[in-house]
């Protein structure tokens, strides 16, 4: 019995250290989920982009970001509830490039008539610090209406944000949340 104790301690220590190595990623992923995001209206920049496209990008971004479940809340531009949200990121989207397409040309020729959109998206904190900047494309090349490009674009933006490790929120409540997550992890270790 006395000889097995050091072995069990060593095993426990090894397991804990293994989780400690895996721990930062887990905390970071969960920490990122604690952010909320407010999606701002799409800025067309110098591009003459139809209002329907701007609105479609905005609405699709809200929809796709909600689907990722990465953010605690996904808020709209101008939402008064945003002032009560502790850790809020702001998603600013500016259109950089737009090529108008034609559904008929796509159907007839297959190789031409693609609708192409390129936007620059910035995730900023409320004090203006940019924590993520990305340039994303959304195209429709074969099947679907021209507005489908906005759906593909928003999906790509959401996918890119999801695959990116965001910094942890800095507020006290979220630190507590992160601590509770780490203690939960320890509980899991103990159960094993």
């Amino acid at each position: 019995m006395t000889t097995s104790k050091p072995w069990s301690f060593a095993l426990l220590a090894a397991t804990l250290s293994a989780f400690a190595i895996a721990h930062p990623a887990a905390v970071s992923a969960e920490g990122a989920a604690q952010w909320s995001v407010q999606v701002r209206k799409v800025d067309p920049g110098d591009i003459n982009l139809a209002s329907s496209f701007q609105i479609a990008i905005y609405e699709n971004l809200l929809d796709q970001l909600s689907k990722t479940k990465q953010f605690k809340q996904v808020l709209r531009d101008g939402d008064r509830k945003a002032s009560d949200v502790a850790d809020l990121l702001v998603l600013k989207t500016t259109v950089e490039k737009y090529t108008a397409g034609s559904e008929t040309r796509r159907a007839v020729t297959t190789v031409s008539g693609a609708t192409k959109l390129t936007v620059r998206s910035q995730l900023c904190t409320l004090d203006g610090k940019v924590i993520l900047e990305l340039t994303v494309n959304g195209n429709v090349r074969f099947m679907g209406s021209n507005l489908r490009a906005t759906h593909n674009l928003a999906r790509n933006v959401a996918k890119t944000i999801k695959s990116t490790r965001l910094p942890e929120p800095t507020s006290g409540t979220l630190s507590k949340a992160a601590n509770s997550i780490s203690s939960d992890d320890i509980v899991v270790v103990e159960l094993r």
Partner: protein
Amino acid sequence: MNPTDVPCLCRPSDLLLICRPYMAVLALLIASGTAALAQDASQKNSPSSTHATHLLGFAGAPDNASGTLSIEGDALQFQKSGKPAAEVKLASIQDVFLGDQSKQVGGIPMTLGKAAVPFGGGRAVSLFAHKKYDTLTLEYVDANGAFHGAIFQLNKGQGEIVRNELVAKGAQVSNSDFESSKQTAEASSDNK
């Protein structure tokens, strides 16, 4: 033969007597035609409701749903048949934009059918299998001040009618867009 025995049709009064039933029928036809035209014109000028497809964004309405878009009192309503109506107060509408788009008709079944036509014959069908629609883009805010956008697809010509009715009932429209759409309409009428 006495010339007085022959019924004299050359006298105007007799001719009028004979033609009286025909003239009455003709007058009736003209009157009913005028009434039908007047009714048609009044329907075109102030539609209480119009068929529309909700593409995205209207709170409470499913995307890509066909239904009826109507102005009821101080609200704009969209109702899919058999479903409760979704509505937005006219006072909360911040802007209305008109656009148009050309779409392939027939959806996925038609696309698959065209793909199945040998020797690329489906492409030739695509040249004619498209239809022009109006798009009506609304910008509005909800009770929390959150910005929303909604896009509807209407039959060609219906967009401007709905927009004019919205403007008449108090919805806000940016003047520049209104002017440009008026100019476009005037230009197109000039071209005709």
